[in-house]
């Protein structure tokens, strides 16, 4: 319990540092937000008036705390370009991106765990060699290119998939999920390859340890040693990797959404980066950071369940 408490505290602290860094970074870059809002229409009076109204003349730290408190209350500011609240803009996009990331994660787990165990068990067998080479190749294909290849193969040759035929989750949830399967595969493939490789190595390493010898000495079969003794130990680094992979998938979906024409957060993010619409960029970055930190917290908790050795340590 104290472990979880400590991890939550550490997460809050990191979140605090992240928010401070994000806020400072976007406050210190040259360019006045009011000028940016009104563009050519800006007059000195208008600028002064809005600066006062937006509290831009206050000290940096005061502005930070104001921004942070309103942020956690759900007020993420107003977009410079669209003049509408940022929270509303991203609220409807987040479920799309999150669904895509979670689907990719599930696909990665389903592929990598059985495959990793299988090739570790048949180390140096023919399948081990084939899959290891295949893994190396898959890891080298950037997700956006595999996305294009998938579109080409399933959309142009097999014609089972209609590129750009995205259906919103509010309209038809089934069709929404169906459309996301192939993009999810494109995101999952390189991560699955890495996870397979990691699990294989981890199982082989654990299988060489002394406690495995002890397990054999008590008359365990190879399978019993693998599933009762080795696997739980071997999963420890894999859990860490998968947590990082899930976080990467949230971000990785930005590129894939572009390839498959999925209206998730990527489009708003890229437009706002190009247009320097900072409130939107800030909100999305903070949103993703919060997701990532929550994922990390979950990984830490799972970690604690798998590995009893982790104590409250500094």
């Amino acid at each position: 319990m104290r472990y979880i408490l400590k991890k939550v505290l550490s997460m809050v602290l990191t979140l605090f540092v992240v928010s401070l860094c994000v806020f400072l970074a976007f406050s210190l870059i040259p360019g006045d937000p009011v000028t940016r809002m009104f563009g050519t229409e800006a007059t000195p009076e208008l600028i002064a008036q809005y600066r006062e109204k937006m509290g831009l003349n206050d000290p940096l730290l005061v502005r930070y705390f104001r921004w942070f408190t309103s942020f956690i209350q759900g007020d993420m500011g107003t977009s410079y370009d669209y003049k509408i609240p940022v929270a509303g803009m991203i609220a409807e996009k987040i479920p799309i991106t999150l669904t895509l990331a979670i689907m990719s994660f599930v696909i990665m787990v389903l592929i990598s765990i059985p495959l990793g165990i299988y090739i570790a068990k048949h180390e140096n067998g023919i399948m081990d060699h084939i899959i290891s080479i295949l893994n190396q190749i898959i890891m080298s294909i950037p997700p956006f290119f595999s996305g294009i290849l998938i579109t080409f193969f399933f959309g142009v040759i097999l014609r089972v998939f209609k590129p750009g035929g995205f259906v919103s989750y509010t309209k038809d949830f089934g069709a929404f999920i169906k459309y996301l399967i192939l993009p999810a595969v494109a995101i999952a493939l390189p991560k699955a390859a890495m996870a397979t490789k990691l699990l294989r190595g981890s199982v082989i390493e654990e299988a060489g340890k002394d406690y495995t010898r002890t397990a054999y000495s008590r008359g365990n079969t190879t399978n019993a040693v693998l599933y009762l003794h080795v696997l739980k130990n071997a999963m420890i680094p894999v859990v860490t990797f998968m947590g990082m992979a899930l976080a990467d998938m949230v971000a990785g979906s930005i590129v894939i959404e572009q390839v498959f024409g999925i209206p998730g957060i990527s489009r708003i993010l890229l437009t706002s980066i190009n247009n320097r619409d900072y409130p939107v960029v800030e909100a999305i970055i903070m949103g993703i950071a919060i997701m990532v930190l929550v994922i990390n917290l979950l990984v830490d908790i799972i970690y604690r369940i798998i590995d009893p050795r982790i104590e409250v340590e500094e």
Partner: protein
Amino acid sequence: MEQRRVIQIRNLNVYYKNHKKTPFSKDRMNHVLKGVDLYVYEGEILGLAGESGCGKSTLAKTIVGMNKIYDGVLSQTYSDPQMVFQDPYSSLNPSKKIGWLLEEPLKSDKKYKWTKEEREKRVKEIIKAVGLTENMLDRYPSQLSGGQRQRISIGVALMRNPKVLVADEPVSALDVTIQAQILELLQQLHRDMGITILFISHDLRVIYQICDHVAVMKGGVIQEYGETKSVYKNPSSEYTKELLRAAGIRK
């Protein structure tokens, strides 16, 4: 003849930070050495016996100045004491050649600036003194056996010609026959160079073989001190008796 004390330790206390500290507990310091009194006489080999966690390594580190935070008196006649560690595999930098390793103490000597020729001469002298040949100088530690590495470690410690050598379990990681050779080497160096040695070991048989005096330590306290033979014959503390019994020396 009254022998000179080269190291005098009076009421030495060392505290270590407790690394497993919890945010809510107060007890953050471990009292590792609790009022240690010890003298080391010039030219002797003093044995320090004890089991793991008794504080013997902490005492060694404090004497050679690796542990700067202590209270109590620690006065030494000679500066620059050197130390030999237990594990011959980790005490030599794996990415450097033996010659480089031997030369390094001379490059960082603050009292005397050694020229290149002098350094090379000294390296050759020492490699011979620890019973190895010059062709070892071009090798890496990984190409040496455990016993050879321990000889090099001793050589590194001897480069600047120290008057005091602290040897922390120098033979514990070695095979018995190699152990005997290293002990012989230490005794020979002690004879030839007149070095004072503080010899730390958990092995009472080894201590008996080479030490003039012995101090037995437990829980950060010196339990017993005296001339080796008489301590082994008539141990006064219960703990010494238990140790001797466990080692099969006393029935």
